């Protein structure tokens, strides 16, 4: 039995559940909005409405999409969330990804430092600045230092900028956008040709290419990197610029469906399900 943990409004978890239905794979959906109302668990069993209880022992893997803030949840719900995180962090097998491992993404400078220990890609020259007045001489972008998403629409060049909260300043890198999805030992690279600075927000102008052919040594090193940072499933953003692959970030909860929907196969979903079934 696979546990799907998330909310119904998340298109990624819905997409994977639909895939499981098509493939006739058993799963239970832990809708976090219903946890503590219709759905409960204790130290031995899960309880879903209209179904017999099932034991934690039958869970072969967990797809974790618990990404939202629970600040306004009831006290009972908050207790259950913490216990569920305990199960996902320390007890269940095959969790994609364990909550505690996803927080490396919260610090982009940390990720960049870790990535800089690998030499198969280049880490862009990056400034982390706060409460600073700087002059930007080469075309650069400014973005968030945390997992909070920042839309990169503007580039700065030959100008003074006053920076208050912590930000990252990186040079503009023109080139081919590549999203590398890794699941365990398997990897799938997709390229996206786009005219915009941030292709995620200008989807109409994007052109997808199936299977970007990354060198095998590159794939092996990327898998090694993900193992080191504890992410068994992740989406690495790269840019191919002047024949070099630049590392941008590794997303621990990638919205992979955006890419897979544009491709003629289900390789990513298939590897996820294999892993969650305990057949990596």
């Amino acid at each position: 039995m696979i546990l799907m943990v998330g909310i119904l409004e998340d298109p990624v978890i819905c997409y994977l559940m639909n895939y499981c239905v098509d493939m006739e794979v058993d799963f239970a959906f832990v809708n976090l909005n219903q946890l503590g109302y219709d759905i409960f668990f204790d130290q031995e069993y899960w309880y879903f409405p209209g179904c017999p209880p099932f034991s934690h022992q039958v869970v072969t893997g967990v797809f974790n999409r618990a990404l939202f803030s629970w600040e306004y949840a009831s006290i009972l719900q908050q207790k259950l969330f913490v216990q569920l995180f305990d199960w996902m962090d320390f007890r269940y097998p095959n969790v994609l990804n364990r909550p505690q491992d996803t927080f490396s993404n919260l610090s982009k400078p940390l990720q960049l430092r870790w990535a800089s220990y690998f030499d198969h890609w280049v880490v862009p020259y990056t400034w982390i600045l706060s409460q600073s007045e700087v002059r930007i001489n080469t075309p650069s972008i400014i973005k968030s230092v945390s997992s909070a998403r920042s839309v990169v629409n503007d580039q700065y060049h030959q100008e003074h900028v006053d920076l208050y909260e912590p930000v990252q300043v990186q040079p503009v890198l023109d080139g081919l956008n590549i999203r590398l999805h890794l699941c365990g030992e398997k990897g799938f690279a997709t390229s996206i040709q786009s005219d915009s600075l941030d292709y995620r927000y200008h989807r109409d102008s994007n052109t997808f290419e199936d299977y970007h052919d990354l060198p095998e040594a590159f794939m092996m090193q990327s898998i090694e990197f993900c193992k080191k940072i504890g992410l068994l499933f992740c989406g690495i953003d790269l840019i191919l610029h002047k024949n070099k692959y630049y590392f941008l970030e590794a997303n621990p909860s990638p919205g992979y469906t955006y890419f897979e929907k544009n491709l003629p196969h289900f390789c990513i979903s298939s590897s996820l399900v294999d892993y969650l079934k305990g057949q990596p």
Partner: protein
Amino acid sequence: MFMFLLEPNDHFGYQCALKIKDQCHLPVKIFKTQDLRHLSISGEIGGSNSMTVNGISDIELLYMNPYYFLSSMFRDIESEYLRLSWVSVMIWFSISFRHVINPLVPAMLSPSYFDTHRLRRLAFQHGLVRHLEKPFRRFRQHSETICIFGQAYECCSELDHLVPAVRAFFNDLGLLWGQCFFDDDLQLMGYSISIRSPSKSVVARAVAVLLDLYYQKPVIPLKPLSHSGLSLPESIRPQLPNSLYQRKTSDDRVI
């Protein structure tokens, strides 16, 4: 340069900073943790990996309490975006200076990391409590304490035999320094990341460790005492009540 990020109630940290500054005459900079957001920071990645904080570029040792960034005190920053930004910076700080006590490790942000269920489990596994359900609190009236400063420690001789277990317990929590509190029965009743009610001998021991680190005397890195991170031999290790408590296996990893 020593940099101390102190909370108002961290008398131990303050005494250490003053002793290093006034008695050892070494450069020390003290900042209030809540003033962090007003500091000017400039750091570089992909080049020299250099960093300056308020114009100081030679910080060798940072003392801070990671729990501050996980606690309600940090909620003074009104915007979630800003809070995340500063947590990100402190995680980055934690790997950027030669020595950081205690570092903010990303995994600490998981709600289960310092959860009571986990703490009880770890205390039980390391033999610090005899029953899994023993009430566990971070700080209460206690009988005896053990202070851990990396490889050094301070406690009464009666507790000496528990030091390896306490060290392994802190190791599992990613803490280099901390204090454990014991009841009359010598069972763990709580812990603290910062040192509470420090005696002169505790401050002196801590300062000695800080100076060792500063002068780079050989320091043995803190690591698990056995392969699994448990302090007791397999044969006498307390058994958890059912198989559900077994540690993860199929994708276990070590960074």
